[in-house]
């Protein structure tokens, strides 16, 4: 089973990201579960969402305590205790920021996970450029899929099209493509070039 934990703020599409990932995995014929941390909904409040992917039916429903991948859509959360919990088996952390990794004030994160596993990505900038709104979720998701090799780009595109229509779908796909190639061209600072899945419960 592969477990992803998404962090961000209300309004950034964190929950949608988790759902999209689950839809993409489903399209690949796998079992997938996605759900948000539930709370009063408010723009700007910290939000977490979870996605599990497996080839067997998924029966547990607890929040993801030990994620294989951590996707941080808002860099202001990198010192948040909830975000820093359970990172022992985490293989990759994506952080949405324009800062260089040594500029990012995230000492605990760097210590717990290791610099080599942190990938920096200016997702908001790409979102503003290609989507016109600060919704970095699909960009982050795309980069994650490229790094992990979990979902093919075509599948991701199909998943995006199943959720969005018209211009929104097109602009998101364009942004996803840019993020994908940033990874492929190794133009993202640090991070592993590929993350393999483990059979971890």
């Amino acid at each position, binding site marked *: 089973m592969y477990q992803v934990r998404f962090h961000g703020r209300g309004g950034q599409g964190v929950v949608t990201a988790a759902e999209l990932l*689950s839809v993409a995995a*489903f399209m690949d014929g796998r*079992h997938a579960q996605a759900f*948000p941390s539930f709370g009063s909904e408010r723009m700007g409040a910290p939000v977490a969402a979870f996605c599990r992917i497996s080839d067997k039916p*998924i029966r547990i*429903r607890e*929040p993801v305590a030990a994620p294989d991948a951590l996707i941080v859509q808002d860099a202001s959360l990198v010192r948040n205790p909830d975000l820093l919990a359970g990172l022992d088996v985490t293989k990759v952390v994506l952080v949405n920021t324009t800062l260089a990794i040594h500029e990012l004030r995230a000492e605990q994160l760097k210590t717990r996970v290791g610099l080599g596993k942190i990938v920096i990505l200016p997702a908001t900038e790409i979102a503003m450029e290609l989507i016109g709104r600060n919704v970095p979720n699909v960009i982050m998701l795309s980069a994650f899929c490229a790094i992990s090799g979990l979902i093919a780009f075509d599948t991701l595109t199909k998943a995006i099209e199943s959720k969005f229509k018209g211009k929104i779908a097109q602009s998101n796909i364009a942004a996803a493509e840019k993020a994908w190639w940033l990874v492929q061209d190794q133009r993202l600072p640090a991070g592993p070039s590929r993350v393999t899945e483990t059979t971890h419960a």
Partner: protein
Amino acid sequence: MLKQLEGSHAVAEAIAMCRPQVISCYPITPQTHIVEALSGWVKSGRLSPCEYLTVESEFAALSALIGASAMGARTYTATSSQGLLYMAEALWNASGLGLPIVMTDGNRAIGGPINIWNDHSDTMAMRDCGWIQLHAESNQEATDLHIQAFKLAEEISMPVMVCVDGFILTHAYERVDMPSQKEVDEFLPAYEPRQILDPADPISIGAMVGPEAYMEVRYLLHNRHLQALDVIPRISDEFRNKFGREAGGLVRTYRAEDAETIVVALGSVNGTIQDSIDDLRDAGHPIGSMSICSFRPFPLKAIRTALQNAKRVIVIEKNLAPGLGGILASNIRMALRGMTKTVSTVICGLGGRAIMKKSVTECLLKGHRDQLEDLSFIDMNWPAIERELEREKTTRRSGPMAEHLMFDVTKDVMPEPVS
């Protein structure tokens, strides 16, 4: 057809295919996505003919359906927690009048203190309202149970409540095999009322019944529940034959045939329990589980049979009955009357506290080793409780305990999962 979608949307699709004629809606987290989806389809004409009533309270929501059902329409609504309580009077009225209304309850804790997250306190509080109460283990089962619910309700002329864990199921995206409209139409015939307000044949429904007949009338209601003990498995069989999968029924066991210890629970926590069972079995422990789908009527015989060879039973409950402990465990003990078995109550998940597989496994192992108290709790913050009790001891005006605990808990370094 296989789909990946949110639980509440899956339920809404199933409901729509059952062709309800009158739907009433009053919003409350976490069921609202269901009625919202239905409103969209009514407006677009996808669900037609259907009258969609946006009402002013849950009491009105169920009352409207009582009227609609008495007129001969197929009816549906959804609620949770406070809403279920707000319609309490109407719940008893609907079952007392024998109206086959179907309702989803998105299980949610009852306040105070106010809490929007999942546990079973709401439907537990209404366990004697006369409604059939069915619990779904997964979103697939939630979908399937609603289709069965209409058939069941209309056949025995009793209202049916399908309990779906709030947030945990309602708001989770997972795979569901969605039946087709044709399949549902073949499974669920048009509604034929037992009683109907008809000018051509006027009747009076709902008169006062005095001591001379009330006992008999109540027994007849109870008798419908007893009938349901046969109808529920039969409908589940029919469902399996038509749709090709298990859903509903009275109880379902998992690796329990040779089990020394059997774990019993309602709803989605059974998934976590089954994962724990697998781990424990791998370690050589003869342990299994039983998921109860039909909580009301409570299948005494089926439970007795399923548990008869176990030495001990661990009942996992998402409801704490103040001053007593476990309701499900009490009901289980009734089923095991006369048998020498230990039945322990384990309470977890109250107010949406995450139920971690690791904690469940530890607890089940303890139980299997007869190390559990009669009543125990999973992942309870005992230090915070001790602190509050100390505070209450030292001063009379100790302040609101809920607010203190919130303060304490957020201060604490708790080995708690991300919420």
